[in-house]
């Protein structure tokens, strides 16, 4: 949808054709003191889009804890990425962003440009990108459209990341029917920089030059942000294909090297990448941040094609472009650097003092807008929030009963269930099985920093020239969020930070990508508001700053809204990589300890997905203070060298946590699980704040002492070794098929680890009907 295609008619006034409401047009008039012309209206339509302006979410995001210099925060929300110091003059930059709607329309390019966009957010700040994590969510794995999207998105992430030479080291892949019409492609990027090179997206110094470098500007991605990311999908999606950007990873690779060279040689005063909103966004944001304005000569912008209208040049989202603010005397040096990297480079304007974005074409001024009215003074909406009628008992309105998936046919009544059959079903399920068929399409080892790559918990990247390592993960608990958005978000933060802490690393900060529905729908906005509250509460309880993120709304299709999905990205710091603790069982004869205790509630669990949800069931609760103590325990256990392995209890519950440790360690276990609630809750329940720790028997007492010191229940539940996975149920609550047969003895799980490994390893390829994945060397 562009101005050209939608001429003004009485039926459809231009501002509405561009996605602006009548109120918003009035607000624009107030800010300009006059009517905007068509070009200005097009610029406002992009900058005031949900995607660029955060007009619905701003009031909520202001409530989040953003940390301070005391937390090591060097740059926080509002910048292209959060930056946190890791000592020794080094800092880590990280951010997660969505590219959901483009990926739904054109999976390969949507995902590829998603990677490209988040990488630019990182190196724009002077950081060299060192890792990518991709958090992907799709509909039912059996659905042909889902398979088409998975294939395209995975190829797109790999096609871009592999070529630019940034390893893809982690992420998620989740299938749930609620994403059937609207997949989620969230990409997190991490960069490493010397603090002295920190560069901000600001345009100081009237008289400085505005230089555009990188790819030329074309018609691709016209209105990508406003058209795609800020409206609910209807059935005319193909008409939106022209709005999808097209990526060129080779151009991005050159852009990375050129940009970092410009920064390290001190040639730029400010740097901003061109993403959503193109030249309009980059010029107004950098000017507004510095309290300056800009005079832009549109004729100086290098074009990809002739005959482009002014508004097209101003809002085009052509990829791989950067805007640099440069002192006049350094212009020739900048041109020399760009020329050496073979990158087009043009001086398109001047920084001015009047605070306006003024655009001239053929010597005639066609645009004059106060920069701030496009960005910091953009309209903010106070949306209406109202909880669904039956808040907990059922999924919120507008959300299909997602947890009742295709697996509903495989309903497993708790009484009389065979725990071994359930475990095998869980390990082979598309949400639990090995992701190897996907991450083997990514280069996860380039840059020679990858200590732990994808597939075994959090990713670990050594920091060259130090003993340090960065530990990163992404997590989101959407199923619980569908029942209780506050809890879903808090659980997401708890799990993501826990996955970092169990390696021994200290979480540094949180970035988030909030994927929700249409904010004009009170239930959907209530979900967003509750989730942001949960995010803030959890981060305050765990003492973590939220350093930035991204909000993706209107994730709805004719099939309904997605589960509210608060994607959480966490980066942690391990001071001495030698103390790293992994999730794989390390040695035969180690003692297995369970720290923390199960609490009831199966709603939102993988077990419930398999067995079918019980309408009256509730999700497990979360005690944020216990979570904080558990993570402190995990870090201390690692630092003191007491833990041989640590794995948290999450998807699939205790049984799956034990199975993963056994499969990855290539050894069996003999475990006795005390049944406090019911076999399903104790074996497969996903109540948080629990870790499975293995240790040399002589260290077990010290670990038990340490757990109690942190006020955590701890129980020695078994021993590693052998080739069988033997888990028996003990206690009054024990039940099982045997009981059905009248026996008093509960059935134990008694399976060969090799069989569990095969089930786990082949589950995903089977679910997607991909060629059977070839066995690769497990572990490293």
């Amino acid at each position, binding site marked *: 949808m562009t101005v050209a295609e939608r001429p003004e008619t009485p039926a459809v006034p231009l501002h509405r054709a561009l996605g602006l409401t009548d109120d918003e047009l009035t607000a624009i008039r107030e800010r300009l003191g006059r009517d905007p012309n068509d070009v200005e209206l097009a610029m406002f339509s992009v900058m005031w889009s949900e995607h660029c302006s955060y007009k619905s979410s701003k009031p909520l995001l202001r409530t989040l804890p953003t940390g301070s210099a005391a937390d090591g925060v060097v740059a926080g929300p509002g910048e292209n990425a959060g930056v946190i110091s890791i000592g020794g003059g080094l800092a880590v930059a990280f951010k997660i962003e969505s590219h959901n709607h483009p990926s739904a329309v054109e999976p390969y390019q949507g995902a590829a440009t998603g990677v490209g966009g988040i990488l630019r957010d990182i190196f724009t700040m002077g950081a060299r990108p060192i890792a990518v994590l991709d958090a992907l969510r799709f509909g039912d794995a059996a659905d042909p459209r889902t398979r088409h999207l998975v294939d395209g998105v995975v190829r797109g992430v790999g096609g871009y990341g592999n070529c630019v*030479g940034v390893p893809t080291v982690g992420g998620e892949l989740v299938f749930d029917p609620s994403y059937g019409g609207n997949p989620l492609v969230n990409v997190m990027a991490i960069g490493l920089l010397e603090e002295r090179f920190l560069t901000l997206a600001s345009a100081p110094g009237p008289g400085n030059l505005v230089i555009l470098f990188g790819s030329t500007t074309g018609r691709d991605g016209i209105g990508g942000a406003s058209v795609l990311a800020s409206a609910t999908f209807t059935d005319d999606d193909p008409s939106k294909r022209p709005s999808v950007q097209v990526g060129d*990873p080779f151009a991005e*690779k050159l852009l990375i090297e050129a940009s970092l060279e410009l920064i390290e040689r001190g040639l730029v005063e400010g740097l901003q990448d061109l993403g959503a909103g193109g030249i309009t966004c980059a010029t107004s944001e950098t000017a507004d941040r510095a309290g300056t304005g800009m005079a832009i000569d549109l004729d100086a912008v290098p074009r990809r094609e002739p005959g482009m209208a002014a508004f097209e040049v101003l809002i085009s989202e052509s990829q791989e472009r950067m805007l640099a603010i440069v002192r006049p005397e350094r212009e020739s040096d900048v041109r020399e650097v760009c020329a050496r990297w073979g990158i087009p480079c043009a001086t398109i304007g001047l920084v001015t003092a009047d605070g306006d974005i003024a655009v001239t074409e053929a010597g005639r001024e066609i645009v004059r807008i106060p920069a701030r009215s496009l960005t910091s003074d953009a309209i903010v909406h106070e949306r209406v929030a109202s909880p669904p009628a039956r808040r907990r008992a059922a999924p919120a309105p507008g959300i299909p009963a997602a947890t009742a998936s295709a697996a509903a046919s495989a309903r497993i009544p708790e009484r009389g269930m065979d725990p071994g059959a359930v475990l095998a079903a869980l390990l082979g399920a598309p949400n639990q099985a090995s992701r190897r068929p996907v991450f083997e399409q990514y*280069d996860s080892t380039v840059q020679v920093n990858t200590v732990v790559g994808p597939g075994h918990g959090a990713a670990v990247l050594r920091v060259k020239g130090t003993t340090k390592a960065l530990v990163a993960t992404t997590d989101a608990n959407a199923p619980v969020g569908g029942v209780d958005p506050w809890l879903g978000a808090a659980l997401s933060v708890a799990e993501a930070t826990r996955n970092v802490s169990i390696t021994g690393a200290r979480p540094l900060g949180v970035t988030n990508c909030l994927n929700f529905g249409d904010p004009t729908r009170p239930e959907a906005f209530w979900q967003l508001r509750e989730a942001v509250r949960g995010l803030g509460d959890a981060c305050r309880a765990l003492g973590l700053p939220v350093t930035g993120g991204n909000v993706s709304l209107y994730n709805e299709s004719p099939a309904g809204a997605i589960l509210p999905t608060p994607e959480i990205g966490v980066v942690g710091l391990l001071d001495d990589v030698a103390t790293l603790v992994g999730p794989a069982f390390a040695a035969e004869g180690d003692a297995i300890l369970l720290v923390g205790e199960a609490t009831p509630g199966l709603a939102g669990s993988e077990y419930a997905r398999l067995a079918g949800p019980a309408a009256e069931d509730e999700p497990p609760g979360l005690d944020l203070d216990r979570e904080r103590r558990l993570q402190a325990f995990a870090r201390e256990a690692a630092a003191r060298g007491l833990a041989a392995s640590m794995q948290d209890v999450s998807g699939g519950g205790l049984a799956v946590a034990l199975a993963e440790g056994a499969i990855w360690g290539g050894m069996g276990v003999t475990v006795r699980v005390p049944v406090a609630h019911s076999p399903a809750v104790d074996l497969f329940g996903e109540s948080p704040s629990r870790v499975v720790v293995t240790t040399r028997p002589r260290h077990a007492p010290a670990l038990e002492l340490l757990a109690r010191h942190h006020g955590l229940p701890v129980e020695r539940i078994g021993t590693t070794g052998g080739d069988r996975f033997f888990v028996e149920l003990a206690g009054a609550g024990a039940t099982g098929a045997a009981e059905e047969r009248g026996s008093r003895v509960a059935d134990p799980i008694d399976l060969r680890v090799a069989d569990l490994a095969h089930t786990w390893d082949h589950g995903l390829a089977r679910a997607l009907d991909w060629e059977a994945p070839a066995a690769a060397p497990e572990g490293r």
Partner: protein
Amino acid sequence: MTVRVGVVVFPGSNCDRDTTHALALAGADPVELWHETADLQGVAGVVLPGGFAYGDYLRAGVIARFSPVMRSVAAFAAEGGLVLGVCNGFQVLAEAGLVPGALLRNRGLRFLGRDVRIAVEEPDTPFTHLAGPRRPLRMPVAHGEGCYFADDATLDALEAGGRVLFRYVREDGSVAGEADDPANPNGSLRAIAGVRNAAGNVAGLMPHPERASEAILGSDDGFGLVRSFVESAAATAASAGRPLEAARR
């Protein structure tokens, strides 16, 4: 004295820093050789690193071979200079005709990034003499076009001439099959992972020894190959142009 070794940097190379890092660990003095310069700065050996030279648009390595630096590398090779191509570097050498054969798309038609095991077929070459006791070497591959191909006559000649340097093998060391054998990640004919030219001074392989040169990264099996190259380069530099046998132990 530390030997000066060149690492070619094409636009789109993305393993150049990794290669420089590993060469330095092996005691070399690595210098970057920019694709537009014909001057090799008197290096004793040249490495073509992995990546996507010129984006690998059209076909992997096909554009890179025409760059100014490659003319110098070809001349350097003709004089007996040591040249090693890794991954995309191997593809460039094959496109330039400096090593025989071609690298086709992986059998699965997907990019594949994982650890593989390779066996050193010729332990007494400038590229392998420090590889250590015969055992499968574990290191990563990361490529979309790594399926080694040549006609049967060429393959026979390579084997007869001891020019197959590396083969993909299973964990037990047995040579991987050509089809449907996970140990052969890309379907390379006769499981060939690396070859050298007739003169023996130019070699290429798809796996990444530079990514397996430190225990912290999960494997240092590749470091012996990096050290072999550096020591051989030092020996050729010292022996100033005498035949490569001088570099052999």
